[in-house]
């Protein structure tokens, strides 16, 4: 598919463009957090505990007098890091399993796809909870566990692409020229199978951010004092009757971020294959 064609279609989709703009903006917020945040996110000020939003503290303060806006800005770092690393892990595993499955077929395919079936039947959120609780909550554990439990979709996509691509003439041509299996997979098949993976990776970032925030909310994610959107919301839940701003704003940040990745992903999908838009 031609790049220019893709761009032309993508640009016409206003929702997709707003997704892209928001995703880019979030990226810069995370990168420039130290400049953008009005306060030190961990600065405790017991004179200013649980203040409602005001010009001084735009989104109010928490139970330790910390500025909520600053904590949300720094929290974006956690979300993006977890989102990208977890999806990176999932994509690599998915590519590997899917490629082997689709290229070699036969028993390799059988074994891989049964593994995918088992993993899909897994009560994944339960397993993630158990593993994180046992390993101890840390940002690295979360990224690895989310990555290890979300590769199945990619594997199926890549397998399906491989199954159809391997019958094509250019693959037969490369094979008859004596290309090795590894060369066939890496140079000829994988590059052609990457477009659908791009969509699922973008949507995957959204899913990973949701899972991380849920884990942090349950106290099994990023641990305070490191700010994450989920753990600010935990404080919001504990003070829900007296401090609404602690519950509203971090969740809004999650919603907007996740939605922009979803919009971007859907936009890419429709730009790749306009028939899907109905």
């Amino acid at each position, binding site marked *: 598919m031609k790049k220019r064609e893709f761009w032309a279609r993508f640009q016409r989709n206003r929702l997709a463009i707003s997704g892209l703009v928001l995703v880019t903006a979030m990226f810069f917020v995370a990168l420039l957090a130290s400049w953008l945040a009005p306060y030190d996110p961990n600065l405790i000020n017991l004179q200013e505990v649980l203040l409602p939003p005001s010009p001084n503290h735009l989104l109010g303060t928490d139970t330790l007098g910390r500025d909520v806006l600053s904590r949300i800005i720094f929290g974006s770092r956690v979300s993006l890091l977890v989102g990208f690393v977890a999806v990176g892990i999932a994509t690599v595993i998915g590519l590997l399993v899917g490629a082997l499955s689709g290229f070699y077929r036969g028993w390799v395919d059988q074994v891989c796809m*049964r*593994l995918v*079936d*088992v993993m899909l*039947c*897994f*009560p*994944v*959120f*339960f*397993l993630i*909870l*158990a*593993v994180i*609780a*046992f*390993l101890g909550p840390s940002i690295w554990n979360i990224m690895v566990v989310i990555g290890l439990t979300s590769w199945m979709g990619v594997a199926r996509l890549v397998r399906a692409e491989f199954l159809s691509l391997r019958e094509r003439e250019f693959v037969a041509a490369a094979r008859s020229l004596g290309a090795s299996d590894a060369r066939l997979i890496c140079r000829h098949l994988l590059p052609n199978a990457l477009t659908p993976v791009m969509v699922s990776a973008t949507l995957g970032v*959204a899913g990973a951010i*949701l899972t991380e*925030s*849920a884990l942090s*909310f*349950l106290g099994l994610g990023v641990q305070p004092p490191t700010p994450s959107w*989920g753990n600010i*919301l935990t404080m*919001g*839940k504990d003070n*829900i*009757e007296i401090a*609404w701003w602690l*519950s*509203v704003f*971090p*969740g809004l940040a*999650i*919603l907007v971020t*996740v*939605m922009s990745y*979803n*919009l971007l992903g859907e936009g890419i999908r429709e730009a790749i294959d306009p028939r899907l838009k*109905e």
Partner: protein
Amino acid sequence: MWLYLLKRIFFMLPMLLGITLISFTVIHLAPGTPVELQTTMNPKASLEAQKRLMELYGLDKPLYVQYWDWLKRMAFLDFGRSFSPDRRPVWDKIKERIGITLTLNLLTLIIILSLAIPIGVLASVKPYSWFDKGTTLFVFFGFSMPSFWLALLLILFFGVYLDWLPISGLTSLQFSQFTFWQKLQDLAAHVALPVLGAALLGLAGMSRYMRGSMLEVIRQDYITTARAKGLPEGTVIFKHALKNALLPVITLLGLSVPGLIGGSVIFETIFAIPGMGQLFYSAVMARDYPLVMAELVIVAFLTLLGNLLADVGYALVDPRIRTG
């Protein structure tokens, strides 16, 4: 049909076995033991005592022996005893709670279905109308909404701001003195918010799917034929189209089981509902291996059962599946 059913049930066993094997290994290979967790709080616990506890729990044996022992007990549906100080049989603990979680999820499913089908049909009959666009927007919000945030917002609005509904627990303090109708009302008030939250989230996916499925069917030749022979539009949509569009939705119902049950952990923790989700949360926090394993098995079983029912339902209504 019976052969198909048997085949499907037969295939469930290796799946369940695979799930237990992976869960067991992952859980037991994690560093640290429940014994450490129970004894670090107590400086008097000697190494001797720790060893006795390990033996009591059977944790001193090699992993594959432990798994085999566990599997043998599982064959008789014996989930063992909890590691918690009361040492109650795991099944007793689950029995008290499984009904609550299943009832709540069933209520959620009923609400989702009874709303998603009309919404999907309306949206698909007039694509790109304001109603359809509104639905699409709602779906995007639903997909991106963190479940626990939705729960918090519901609590803030209905529980704190309007002060209409209770925000935690399943019953009020004076529950035992209520009459039957008061009890029913009290229960309904308590489950309203968690069920509403879960239903809103599930509704997003289901109505989107229903719309897609309807659009797919409406394009078919037999719908054009039905219209061409002069049938009223209502008959075409509800009799010819809807019946066929519901088929793929049956499958999605089965597949939505793990999501719903996964959501139970979050909703039950937030609303302090004594169900399976909350039990699981406290079990992982206390490293109660038998309880954690039992819950994983039950949830996996429910998931497989959901898939099976979906496939069987599909096969019942679509003869191509069971013969082909």
